[in-house]
């Protein structure tokens, strides 16, 4: 049987939740598809307070934002259907999406789609990178903050972007020691305030350093790091071995865009946005009519921007079906202004230049 619906939102993270809420509020019938058994995406494990402004729920913790947005979705009654444990496995050229919903094969033909699938973590290649004890930062955060399990006793963090800094801080909160944070760039990539938080808690941050290898008989027992030059070449005689039982890799994210490739969206490789991203217009519609994007799949950014993009994509997808409230123009302008503000500072320069390359008419 083929389900028909106004709008399918793929992904129940910050962007997808906002898209579903906004489109339902405008009057569209929405099907929200979430791969996990619970809504929230990465929000559920983000136990830190968010940056941004009140409009993006700044100062609230990610897990509380997730609950709030999920609850709001419940207020639309039958207008919103949520399928959890539902992985979209295919997006076909005729607009049909296929789903593994709790082991049952389902097909849906939505009039519009918002793809908000988020991102996956990049990995590093170094000798013994397959030893038990080497995790992505996302996995460490899930273990600790969702399941209450410590990944180990002493962690070496690779990457001083916001995720590496935040996960280091959360490891300390969980009572795990962090041996050091290693960063390949000559400067800290994440916000200085995050760096200061872990620094005063006694964690060294080693910039212009990289991991050379991991060692251990059955699992990680140590990691060897070294200083690197601007060309990322290891400087001789700077190697150090650090005892640790966990190596946590936090070297960036890449958009999880395979459904957009399948749908036939025109893609472009833009390093500053994390990899291949779909071209889009100012309504966040891709080159395939009716397919909208929001959040990290459109380019790696902070969750605050993902929420605003979700709202904009939900608003536009609903409007294109005729669900347009009197406040449509006002809301659209508000989204645009919020995004412009979030992206206007020096820390967002990469994002601005990347987005300029991802525009299409």
């Amino acid at each position: 049987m083929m389900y028909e619906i106004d709008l399918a939102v793929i992904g129940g993270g910050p962007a997808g939740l906002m898209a579903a809420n906004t489109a339902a509020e405008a009057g569209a019938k929405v099907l929200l598809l979430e791969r996990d058994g619970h809504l929230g995406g990465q929000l559920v494990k983000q136990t830190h307070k968010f940056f941004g402004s009140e409009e993006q729920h700044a100062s609230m913790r990610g897990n509380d934002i997730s609950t709030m947005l999920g609850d709001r979705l419940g207020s639309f009654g039958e207008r919103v259907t949520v399928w959890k444990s539902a992985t979209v496995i295919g997006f076909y050229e005729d607009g049909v999406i296929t789903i593994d919903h709790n082991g049952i094969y389902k097909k849906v033909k939505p009039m519009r789609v918002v793809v908000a699938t988020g991102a996956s973590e990049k990995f590093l290649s170094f000798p013994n990178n397959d030893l038990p004890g080497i995790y992505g930062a996302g996995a460490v955060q899930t273990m600790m903050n969702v399941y209450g399990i410590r990944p180990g006793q002493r962690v070496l963090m690779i990457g001083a972007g916001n995720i590496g800094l935040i996960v280091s801080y959360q490891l300390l909160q969980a009572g795990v020691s962090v041996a050091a944070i290693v960063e390949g760039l000559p400067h800290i990539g994440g916000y200085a305030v995050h760096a200061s938080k872990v620094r005063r808690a006694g964690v060294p941050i080693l910039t212009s350093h990289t991991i050379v290898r991991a060692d251990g008989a059955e699992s990680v027992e140590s990691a060897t790091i070294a200083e690197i030059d601007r060309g990322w070449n290891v400087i001789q005689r700077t190697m150090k071995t650090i005892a640790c039982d966990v190596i946590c890799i936090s070297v960036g994210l890449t958009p999880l865009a395979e459904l957009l490739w399948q749908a036939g969206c025109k893609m472009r490789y833009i390093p500053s946005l994390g990899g291949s991203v779909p071209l889009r217009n100012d309504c966040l519609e891709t080159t395939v009519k009716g397919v909208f994007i929001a959040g990290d799949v459109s380019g790696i950014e902070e969750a605050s921007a993902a929420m605003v993009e979700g709202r904009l994509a939900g608003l536009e997808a609903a409007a294109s079906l005729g669900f347009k409230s009197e406040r449509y123009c006002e809301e659209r302008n508000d989204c645009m202004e919020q995004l412009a503000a979030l992206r206007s500072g020096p820390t967002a320069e990469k994002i601005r230049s990347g987005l300029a390359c991802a525009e299409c008419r």
Partner: protein
Amino acid sequence: MLINTGIATQELIKKLIPSPERRARGPYAMVECFQEIPCNPCSTSCPFGAILPMKDINDIPTIDLDRCTGCGICAGVCPGLAIFIIDESKGDGTATVTIPYEFRPLPEKGETVRAVNRQGNIIGDGVVTRILASKKTKTPLITVQIPAELVYEVRFLNLIDDKSNSEEPSSTYQSVVTDDLSSKVLDTVEIDDTAGTENDEDEIIICRCEGLTLGVIRDLIREGYTTVDEIKRISRAGMGPCQARTCGPLIASEIARMTGQPIAEIQPSAHRPPVKPLPIEFFLGGDSE
């Protein structure tokens, strides 16, 4: 520099220190936020308008110390935990610093704690005089009395008998490792090794699902398989459960390195449904609802 170390320089801190008169008058906030980032809760939360409204959300906060009462509301909401409340008005050689502290267990009122500086070093002792645990922000504010001369240094605290190690901090966390790492040498060992050899690198697992090493991938590239799809078809790289999400970018960057092509021009492997391996019977089952 702050951006290299995560430690605010003395120069940055000095700019925040108010006039001697203001310091003597009563508590005030020190907003140690030196980078333009998109964040404004400090200015929108201040009930006295002491943290001035921002024209641009990326503005660095500016504080009007005549209006600041040192109430600590901004310190509780600041997502960066970058605001500290200083009170030097007692004039008896002691001062207090209020620190946003998100660790368990919390110290108790009257407890002596170690006073820690921005570098993470213990520089003295302090006594906890007040604990403000807001349910709204979930960021407890701990006020610590310290020698007055340390008030611009102390920004963190350590508990003296490390309760977090002597007992499980509630039962929130359980440990997956059973053997005690602390019995092993934890110190950094300096070695004067040279860089990893090419042979070492050849053993690196690139495709975990199919067990393919970097050596195998390099051999294939040398043989002339120079697209991700060609390597996939000849070796099965990327055909396991992860569907190339881990190995795909690693293979692409190795092709770029060895062939000199720009990474932007290396096509990822073709994306076709399904996005994850599924048994054929799944597709036969269908939706019987």
